[in-house]
């Protein structure tokens, strides 16, 4: 039975998350069938092509923060339904479903932690909460985290993964782009480092605001990053997209990001980088 279920899953248009539930998984990028436990042991990195699978938010914090140093901020903020939006499901129901599924109130986690003893303000997007979409709460939490960073003279690290602005909050979601950009302008005036880590996938209004404004922009290998989604572009230009289009490597080649960093060295790279930017001691 199990075999049939699995093969059906593998044949379907897989999202990497669904596939992660089986014993074997298929790499989103190289399509190799790989043993799930091997991927998990390998920081969720494909052993064949080094594609970095999406991490759960808790895994990301564990990867980056010194043990026991993470403190969450603004966990009490919850979305309203200002438009009383309803598509095939009411927005309120979608929120409840996402909250039940993720045990979180919204699509971003913010707080402070230490990275090799350097204290930083952080934000981590959660793709499993409505595609990591940015609505009023995400915008507000990013702004509040930056406010605290400015007051406490902390660098700000943002780990992105998002489909873009949240449609169910309409133009108010669009305005979160301007709102977060204004907070980042304050960070800039305070001469505090702003480091962005782009992870798979990061698109739309999030790319066109917080994600592309980092002083330093890092990305995980093979992450898809862009403004318009590949399907929209294909429909517009009516041509097949070039190989590797919108992958992190493509962005690096076009001068859009500083570095592609593998998970194994992510924490140490961040610590060195932050030290160079004036947080903590000068790296030895």
């Amino acid at each position: 039975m199990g075999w049939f279920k699995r093969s059906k899953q593998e044949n379907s248009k897989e999202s990497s998350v669904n596939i992660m539930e089986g014993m074997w998984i298929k790499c989103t990028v190289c399509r190799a069938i790989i043993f799930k436990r091997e991927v998990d042991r390998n920081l969720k990195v494909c052993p064949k092509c080094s594609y970095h699978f999406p991490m759960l938010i808790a895994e990301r914090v564990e990867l980056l923060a010194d043990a026991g140093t993470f403190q969450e901020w603004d966990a009490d903020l919850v979305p309203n339904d200002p438009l009383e939006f309803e598509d095939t499901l009411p927005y309120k129901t979608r929120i409840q479903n996402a909250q039940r599924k993720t045990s979180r109130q919204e699509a971003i986690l913010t707080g402070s932690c230490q990275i090799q003893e350097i204290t930083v303000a952080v934000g981590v997007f959660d793709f499993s909460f409505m595609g990591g979409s940015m609505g009023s709460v995400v915008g507000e939490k990013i702004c509040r985290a930056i406010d605290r960073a400015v007051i406490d003279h902390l660098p700000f690290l943002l780990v992105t993964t998002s489909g873009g602005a949240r449609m169910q909050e309409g133009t108010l979601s669009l305005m979160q782009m301007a709102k977060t950009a204004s907070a980042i302008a304050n960070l800039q005036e305070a001469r505090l480092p702003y480091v962005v880590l782009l992870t798979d996938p990061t698109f739309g209004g999030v790319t066109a605001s917080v994600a592309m404004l980092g002083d330093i922009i890092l990305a995980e290998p093979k992450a898809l990053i862009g403004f318009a989604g590949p399907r929209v572009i294909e429909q517009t230009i009516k041509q097949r997209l070039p190989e590797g289009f919108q992958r992190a490597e493509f962005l690096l080649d076009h001068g859009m990001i500083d570095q592609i960093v593998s998970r194994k060295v992510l924490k140490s790279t961040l610590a060195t980088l932050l030290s160079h930017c004036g947080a903590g001691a000068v790296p030895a």
Partner: protein
Amino acid sequence: MREYLDFEKPLKDLEGRIAKLVKSKSKKNSVHEAIEKSTEQLAMMEEELFANLTPWQRSQIARHPQRPSISDYLEELTENMIELHGDRLYGEDRAIIGGLATWNARSIMVMGHEKGKSLKERMRRNFGMAKPEGYRKALRLMKLAEKFQRPILTFIDTPGAYPGVDAEQRGQAEAIARNLLEMVKLNVPIIAVVTGEGGSGGALALGVADRVLMLEHAIYSVISPEGCAAILWGDASKSSTAAAALRMTAPELLKLNVIDDIIPEPLGGAHRDLSLTAKNVSNILETYFKQLEKIPLPTLLKQREAKFRNLGSFSSLQAGAKKVKTANS
């Protein structure tokens, strides 16, 4: 030649019937009465139709092929226009035009999306869908305005930022994001007017202003109704439902504090009377620029930041915490 939208068909039919009667040049009393009666009926019909527009109908007016564009407003309202071209980095994007002009005895920096009218011009202007070089040109002009201490006026009318391979390669997202960040801190008064279609990030890239105004039938949205229908309903034919759900019309956005004021349009839409529309635009701009010119720049910048900072709607779970709801307040 007037172009009719689908929902204007009853008007078109009635106007056709009246024209036929007039053409008959009949001196009969009955014909004369019929013309009079039909003309009255037409006026009532038009009044009623445009007083009860659905959001989808409004978006059709906002995208009307004859909708006045920045070029029309510049022609009507300004003198001594010196157009400025190019982003100095890659190229010249004709989807956004801008330059220095005299308006109401002021030198201003004015810029905005231009969709074009004829098919040929529309193609040259890429239907008002800018690429990174367009947003970077706009930013260059804004920085010049800051240097010369000239107020900035932007006209917004775009389906959105261009979704193409070349735009992505040159950093479409970065170009938009950079404008948002820089506009918040620009040391001159800024007014943005959404004249037609305020399409998502491509619109906002010219929209971080001290006052955001909207023409009565303009729309401003995070995504097009067609795009939203395709993604959330999986059915592009649900566009009119999506248009309503997105609350993209001027009256609804005024309630949500996304915009500051609405500029009235002549009956039937801006394209029915350009000079009247332009006059309405100019009058309201005069009021708001006068208001802004009285505010010291440091205060103005603080207010601009606060304006965008307060946009959104959320609550706190904390016991006894006051429900935070900035929109609708």
